[in-house]
């Protein structure tokens, strides 16, 4: 199993989620993060002072999948989340040793 972590642009969340559902992914965990990268932030004005907001709001998705699904999931995310402009984000693939469903105690691929 792998844990796929994808950093994407917030407004793509709904589309990506729907696409993953379509290819059979049933569970996703999402959090709001701030990204620093090549994409530059904006400036803000307050009482004559200008602040550069150097982080960009991003969405982090975590998806545990069995090995055979990895490439399909990565591909899907890539296709949908891509706008072609800087700041589209990253996908990281992390080895996952075990997964447990708390409700039933199921383990491994059954759990996800």
């Amino acid at each position, binding site marked *: 199993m792998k844990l796929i972590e994808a950093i994407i642009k917030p407004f793509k969340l709904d589309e990506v989620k729907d696409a993953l559902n379509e290819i059979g992914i049933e569970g996703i965990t999402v959090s709001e993060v701030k990204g620093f990268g090549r994409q530059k932030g904006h400036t*803000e*004005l*307050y*009482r*004559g*002072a*200008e*602040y*550069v*907001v150097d982080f960009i709001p991003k969405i982090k998705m975590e998806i545990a999948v069995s090995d055979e699904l990895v490439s399909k999931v990565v591909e899907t995310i890539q296709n949908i989340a891509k706008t072609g402009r800087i700041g589209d984000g990253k996908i990281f693939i992390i080895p996952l040793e075990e997964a447990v469903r708390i409700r039933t105690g199921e383990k491994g691929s059954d759990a996800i």
Partner: protein
Amino acid sequence: MKLKLYLASIMLVVMAGLAPIAAMAEEKKDAAPTVSAAEATPAAATAAATPAPEAAAPAEAAPATPPDVKPVLNTGDTAWMLVSSALVLLMIPGLALFYGGMVRQKNVLSTMMHSFVAMGIVGVQWVVIGYSLSFAPDLNGMGLIGNFSKVMLNGLIVMKDAASGTVEWTLFQNYTKEPGAIPELVFAMYQAMFAMITVALISGAMAERVKFSAYCVFVLLWTTLVYDPLAHWVWMTEGWLFKKGALDFAGGTVVHLSSGISALVFLAFLGKRHGYPTERMAPHNLPLTLLGVGLLWFGWFGFNAGSAIVGVNTSDAAGGLAGLAFTTTMIAPAAAGLSWMIAEWIHSGKPSALGFGSGVVAGLVVITPAAGFVQPGAALIMGVAAGLVCYGGILIKAKLKYDDSLDAFGVHGIGGTFGAIMTGVFATVGATGLLAGNAKQLMTQLIAVVAAGAYAVVVTLIITFVLDKTIGLRVEKEDEIMGLDQTQHSESGYNM
């Protein structure tokens, strides 16, 4: 540092200003006729319902003298003053929001508490001693401070005219010959709210680092030693600046200039916030700040239009003069909001909501001393100028590198001074300014500004110095980083 140099030069200007004050103090006998003359001219479209001869009475009548006419309650005036008092009180939560929204999240409660606790401390102080120091008969005839005859609001509830068999409340005494009046208690409450908010304005400079205990003591001392005397000087018929004919309709010098300049003095001892100016210190909740602007504007109608009660040329609190003050209090902030916004649009590329809101407050500050003395056209000009001048005022901060967190000096100090001076330029209603050919009024305004500013600077210096050496003004650096809400008040603004 630069700031201390700046203060030193202010002191110098102030000293220089004291010379003409001393000089003109001699001619105070002449002042009264000047004023009454102004009133008599048809050009001065005054609001007095009484014939001109009687209009000069206030300056003459000693407060101990029994009234010539039996005062009659005017319920309309009283209603308006009750409302105005409540409106000014509401400005304080308004200020708490205005300031509270502008700080970082970790300091929101402490910043709001600066305003709220001022309501508590000054509310009690005013009743116990403040009203008497400000509005009781003069202590020693020099027009500097009131005596102790009205301590605990003593004597504001008495039978006034026992002879005639009717039981009556004491009415407002400044104009004993007027046939219509309001209960003095109402006047005392109206003035109480002014005292509360003035010291709260200063807190804007201290936000995010001042020690709460030191702040509380400061509130008490500053109100007693700075505010109360200034109110006596300018608004009490026996005050020396009142007698000299200085114009301050609703508190340009007494409220805004004095608080703004005191904020600057305090800063010299307090120092900058940790991380200023490199760290991003963006306002944490601007909708609260905008709501604060809304409540301030709303309340300011009480502040300015309610002040018709202390105007020399009116017998009615809720009459034409109040209408005029209301009008200018609508015009100036509207114009100033726009001019600040447009200045920013041109200067920085975008019109910010905080900019518009700050402009509105600047306009309110600037029109305050002039509210009942100028025509709508002048209010428009003053409003436009207010936005530009105060926008400049906050840019200076970036230059001089002092850390006036929420621009108490930049807006109130600069705006209050500017407004007080402009009143001497534009006054045409019930008084005449430079443009109406009366250069003397402008000189009088300058004297008032310099005198009030100098007094506030000197006394605040002393208070702050003492507090710094005893309680200490500032929290520990670690506490500052953790936030004042947690370290001073053991709570947090939001748990979302």
